């Protein structure tokens, strides 16, 4: 038993009386109560209280509530139980989806525009590569001869 606990252990004793204490704790508390001058009388009082409640008279109303209640239910003011309202499928309303549709269309247009601009840019960027590659082509860029001397007839 934890030495930090205080006596009387009212809560645990109350649960013990109610048979709501788990087995290891129950056994430990039983052992504690057997030697504790503070907890033992509290447990006795709790048990006496239980005996007192068991002896309480059970007054009977002497009234048939079923008939009284049925009469009240039958009266105009008391509605019949209605089934729990089921979530209704929402009606489609075009104006509720219009902003989303417009946004989607704008996004698509913007995407298409940006995509085409990128494609155009890639063609522009490809040109220098084409020029560079042209060095290896049979015809020099601009159809100019890179070695004028070689092209010139030597006259030999």
């Amino acid at each position, binding site marked *: 038993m934890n030495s930090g606990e205080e006596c009387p252990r*009212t*809560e645990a*004793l*109350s*649960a013990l009386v*109610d048979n*709501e204490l788990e087995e290891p704790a129950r056994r430990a508390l039983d052992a504690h109560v057997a030697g504790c001058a503070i907890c033992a009388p509290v447990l006795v*009082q*709790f048990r006496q*209280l*239980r005996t*007192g*409640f*068991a*002896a*309480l*008279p*059970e*007054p*009977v*109303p*002497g*009234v*048939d*509530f*079923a*008939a*009284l*209640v*049925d009469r*009240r*239910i*039958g009266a105009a003011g*008391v*509605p*019949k*139980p*209605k*089934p*729990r309202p089921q979530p209704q499928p929402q009606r489609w309303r075009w104006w509720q989806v219009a902003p989303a549709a417009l946004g989607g269309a704008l996004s698509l247009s913007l995407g298409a525009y940006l995509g085409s601009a990128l494609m155009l840019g890639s063609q522009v960027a490809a040109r220098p590569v084409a020029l560079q590659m042209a060095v290896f082509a049979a015809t020099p860029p601009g159809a100019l001869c890179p070695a004028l001397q070689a092209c010139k007839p030597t006259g030999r």
Partner: protein
Amino acid sequence: MLASDGPDEDWVRRAQAGDRKAFSELVRRHQDRVYRYLLRMLGSHDDALELTQDAFVKAWQALPLWQPEAQFRTWLFRIANNTALDALRRRKLVEFVPLEDGFDAPGPGPDPERQAQATQEVRKLEASLRKLAPEHREILLLREVEEMSYEEIGRVLSLSEGTVKSRIARARAALIEIHARSRR
């Protein structure tokens, strides 16, 4: 046709469909317990008579909200307890409890033998119970008279089991204290 000793839940389903006879069967099954609980909460036979009817009418109206996993008795006591607390608040009796008044039970009424058997100690216990704070009184009645488990009490009062455990202990200690004072 349902057997009259069938489980509450079968009758509740029929009552949910609007069968008032099925609901009457449920009322008959639980009326005495609900009445006694309200009698001890309110301390007045007339109030208990009126509020027992109110509780059952509220139960009828709330039937569509009943879930099969909830025990009907627990569900009904939740309604009865709320009805009692509302009445106590409305009548401003929560703080005021006459200390020396006798228990306004149905007097020498229908069961005089049992009345005669009631010991002085039992009367004192009833008087002490009336002096107890409503939140202590309700939990002790549910535990000691209705013999509900901590779990069931938790469902009736919307409390965790840990809170039920500690509140019952405090309620018992408070009742013993009141009882001891009345003896002095």
